[in-house]
Each structure stands twice: as structure tokens, then as C-alpha cells.
């Protein structure tokens, strides 16, 4: 049996991992929910966010400034891509957006390689402190990551439920044509969602940077996990994304305690099981685009 100290630290590890997954995939989920596109380029903003955080924290000495930079650049990159590419493909079928955004992701990785090179870069953890929880040492930074994810979820919840723009977005997830019919500028709404999604992906990359090595392929490495999270939760559901990202985080973390290779295999097995029962994920809507 695993001893309880390992279990506690594994649980916290899983929580922080789930938080990163949540921040990373909420963009994918929002974009699918409202625009019905699969935006794989979110993983590019994740990579770019991590690199900007690396560079800025090296220059200024503070990770938090780096994070702000990562968020800003992630959002700006998303804005540029939306204006240049996605604007032309909203009307197309889903496979189309998937191929195109995969092209952006691969090309973007090439750009990242051009600027920062191939060598993996370490980012210093800003908070070295450890605290004791149930007799186990826990790095404070991981708890901060969980806290930030919680704040973001609360912020998104307030935004979607209390502001008129957020309500328009929620209505857009149900039916975009009706929203347009109400006189809301859908095009501007799409741009806004894209910027939010890109900024959150950038934040995820920046927060993840101190926990792993920053390298050009990092987006492709988490790609499978991002997929599993959105599939288990159901495309387009924010609640589903929240639930499944913490589920996958725990499965990866606790699974690797039991048997190391389980870290990669277990989420996949769970995804297959869930798809057998619910072909559109836990909270996904059964309806199709057209």
C-alpha cells in the first residue's frame, strides 16, 4: 500500500496538474462551444506563454511580471491568428479548423524554435517555501497554482453569469444565430472569446514553466492530455472541463504512484471507458453543428 505522505503529496501534485490542464483546455472548450471550431493552436499560446515567462523572469527577476507578459502575448497572438486565419474558417466544418489550427501549432513551434532554439530552459520557482499539510511537506507554489486556477474559474463564472457579454457567450453556446438575431455583434464576441482563450492558455504555460522544463515541443507533449480532458468533459462544456481536468490530474498523479507508466496510460483507458458509455463525454451536448 502507498503510505499516506506520498498520497497527500500525490494528491496536491494532481490538484496543481489539474489546475494547469483546466487553464489550458478552457480555451479549447470555449472555442468549440461558441464558434464550433477545434482550436489546437491554444497549445501554441501555452508554449509561447511559457517562453515569454522564461525570458521576462530572467530579465526582470520576477516570475509574476513574466506571467503577465505571457498572458498578454498569448492573448495578442490569439488575436492575430483569429484575424488572419480563423475569421475565414468559422463557416467550415470542424475537421477543417482542426487541420488548419494544427498547421498553426506546428508552424508556431517552428517560430518558437527560431527565436529560442532547441535547448530546454529551466525557470526558477518563485516561492521556495514548503508548508506542512497532514505531516507532509508541500511546495507552496503548487498551492498557489491551484489558487490561481480557482480564481480564474470564479472569474469566468462571474463573467459568464453576471455580465451582459458573458450572458451573450453562454447564449452563443446554445445557439449563435439567435444571439446574432438579438442584435449582438457576434464577430466581436468571437474575437473576445479567442483573446480570452489565448490569454488563459498563456497563463497556463507561464504557471507550468517552473514545474517543468520549457522546450519547443512542450505543447505537443501535453496535446494528448488536453484532448483527453476536453473529450472526457465533453466539448464545449466549461463545467465538464473543470471536472475532467481535475479527474485527469488525479489519475495521472495517483496512477504514477502505483505504477509509473500508468501516468500516460490510465487517462486514456478512462477516456475510452467514458466514451463507451457517453459518446460525447460527461457533459457534452449530443447535438451536431449542422
Amino acid at each position, binding site marked *: 500500500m502507498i503510505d499516506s505522505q506520498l498520497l497527500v503529496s500525490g494528491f496536491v501534485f494532481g490538484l496543481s496538474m489539474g489546475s494547469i490542464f483546466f487553464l489550458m483546455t478552457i480555451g479549447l472548450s470555449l472555442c468549440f462551444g461558441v464558434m464550433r471550431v477545434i482550436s489546437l493552436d491554444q497549445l501554441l499560446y501555452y508554449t509561447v506563454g511559457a517562453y515569454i515567462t522564461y525570458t521576462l523572469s530572467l530579465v526582470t527577476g520576477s516570475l509574476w511580471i513574466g506571467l503577465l507578459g505571457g498572458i498578454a502575448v498569448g492573448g495578442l497572438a490569439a488575436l492575430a491568428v483569429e484575424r488572419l486565419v480563423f475569421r475565414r474558417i468559422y463557416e467550415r466544418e470542424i475537421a477543417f479548423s482542426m487541420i488548419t489550427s494544427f498547421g498553426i501549432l506546428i508552424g508556431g513551434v517552428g517560430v518558437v524554435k527560431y527565436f529560442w532554439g532547441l535547448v530546454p530552459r529551466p525557470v526558477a520557482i518563485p516561492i521556495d517555501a514548503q508548508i506542512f499539510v497532514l505531516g507532509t511537506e508541500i511546495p507552496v507554489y503548487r498551492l498557489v497554482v491551484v489558487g490561481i486556477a480557482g480564481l480564474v474559474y470564479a472569474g469566468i463564472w462571474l463573467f459568464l453569469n453576471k455580465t451582459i457579454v458573458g450572458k451573450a457567450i453562454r447564449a452563443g453556446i446554445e445557439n449563435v444565430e439567435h444571439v446574432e438575431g438579438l442584435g449582438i455583434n457576434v464577430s466581436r464576441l468571437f474575437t473576445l472569446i479567442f483573446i480570452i482563450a489565448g490569454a488563459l492558455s498563456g497563463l497556463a504555460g507561464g504557471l507550468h514553466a517552473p514545474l517543468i522544463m520549457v522546450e519547443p515541443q512542450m505543447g505537443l507533449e501535453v496535446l494528448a492530455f488536453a484532448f483527453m480532458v476536453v473529450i472526457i468533459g465533453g466539448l464545449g462544456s466549461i463545467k465538464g472541463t473543470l471536472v475532467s481536468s481535475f479527474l485527469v490530474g488525479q489519475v495521472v498523479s495517483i496512477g504514477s504512484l502505483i505504477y509509473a507508466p500508468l501516468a500516460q496510460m490510465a487517462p486514456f483507458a478512462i477516456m475510452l471507458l467514458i466514451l463507451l458509455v457517453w459518446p*460525447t463525454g460527461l457533459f457534452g451536448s449530443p447535438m451536431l453543428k449542422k
Partner: protein
Amino acid sequence: MSLVRWWSGLVLAFALLAVLRIYLPLPFAIEIIIFSIYTLGCSFLLGRVGFISFGQPAYLAIGAYATAFYLFYFGNNPYIGILIGVAAGIVGSFLIGPLLVRLRGDYFALVNLALAVIIYYLMQKVLADITHGDNGLWYLTNMSSTPVLDLTRPDQFFIFAFVVAFAIWAFFKYLDDTIYGACCLAVKVNEDKLRFLGYDNFKVRLTAFVIANTTTALAGALYAVYLGFVSPEITSPARAADPVVVTILGGAGTLYGPIVGAIVYTGMKDVVSKVIGNWELIVGFTLVFIMLAGEKGIWGSLEPRLDRLMARVTGKRSDEVGQ
């Protein structure tokens, strides 16, 4: 007469390929042949059945590793190795297929890519005792020479691969003419209507899935015999887009698109990596550009023009050059 017409397009295409062989270095020519077979499965799924498959490397790995296991642990005849690779492809896609083909298009694409990544980890870490992890399996010296066509010699391997490719293209061309081929297209265009006509959607999709992925597994088996080693690298997530890029580049669903795509892609890769060494940049933006430019691909936009040209030259022989 119609028989001659049916074969003439195929023969012309492969005659051109054989001519290319004279001007190109041998490894390049072999790479093109295997890559086109690899892409044909993806092109069939995307252009004919409407499944976008980012998971093709998974089936490539199934074929390659089945062949590699045989050649590394059990035997030394490369022909039997290739047969085992193909058999593994059939069994594998029959096992995976029923779950995947009933998923909606978007979920299919995502699950399939996840599958490729999982097989990567499976081969790299979980089964590391058998697959030797990242080092891969090396068995080049295990393979024995075979009579007639000696697969251990690259020049004779090329002839073998060439004949196999010709047979496969003839098979896919035949498939286009059958009612089953029409059913596949109907699944893509309007699956409700196909159901009204009394066909079983699930069966049509499953068969297409098995055919396409067995083709891919065959390409994997050919790679395994040609290279003499297999490592998890062939199914790495960074290369998952390769078949899709080549499919789009050549023109999805067209018969000769994969060949044109493979020639252009392998050529570009060779030239670009020599000049700037930043390969992803070119692949990614080429993909985006082709998608925005109308997603017809090189062969897809060339084909109607060639048809018209041929019609003008010879009057009635208009449909021979195309499909």
C-alpha cells in the same frame, strides 16, 4: 477497350514514377513509394469517408512493430515479416475500429490522435522490456536473403515496394468503381440518406477504417524491413501531422494525390532542412496556406486541367488521365 482505358491511367502514373527513379537517388525513391502508401490510407479516410485521422502513426507503428517483433525475436524472412505486419494491421483495426467509428467526426479525430500518442508511450516506456524503449529494435543483420527479390538489398526492395504500390493503387481504383466505394462517399456526404437506402452505416465505416488502416500498417511493415530498425520515433506526436499534411498537399480523396504529395513533401523536406533546418515552420504554414487557398491540393487542382488538356489533344480520351 474499356479494360485498356481502365489500366492506362495507372500504368502511366507508375511509368512516370519509374522514370523518376532514374533521376532520383534510391533512398529518396523508396521513401516516396512507402510514404505514398502510408498517405493513401489517410487520404481515403479523409477524402472518401470523411474521417479526419490524425492517428495514422498509430497504425503505422502497429504494422512496423509487428514486423520488427517477428524479425527480432522469431524469424528472419522479411516476406513473412511483412505479412505479419499486415495481419497485425487487420487485427488491430478490427479491435479499435468498432469503438472509434461510432464516434462523431470531431471526437473521432481527437481520440485517434490521443491513440497515436498512447501507442508512442506504450512503445517507449510501458513495453520498454520488449521494444528496448528509445533505442529501438535493430535487426538488419537478422534478415536473411530471399530468392527472386532479395529484400535486404535496397535496389531490389525498391522493385518489390513498387509492385506492391501498383497493386494497392489498382485495388483502390477498383474500390472507387464499386458500389461500396459509392457508399463510402455517401457516408461522407449524407449518412442519413445512406441509411434510408438500406445500408448499414456502421459496417461501411468499419470496413473503410480497416481497409485504410491496413494499408497504413503495410507501409509500416515496409518501413520496418527497409530501415532494418524500428523506434518509437515513428509514432511521435510531432510527426502525427505528416500524413494529413501530405494528404492535403496532394489533394484529399484523389487517387494520385498521395503520390504527388509524397514527392513534393519529401523533396521539400530535403531541400528545406538543408537550407534553414527549421522544418516545422514550413510544414505548418504550408498546411495553413493550402487550407485557406481552397484545400484542393496540388493534384486536386491539377487534375481537371490535365483532363481538359488531354481532351483537347486527343478528343475522346478525356477520362484516362484522371481517375
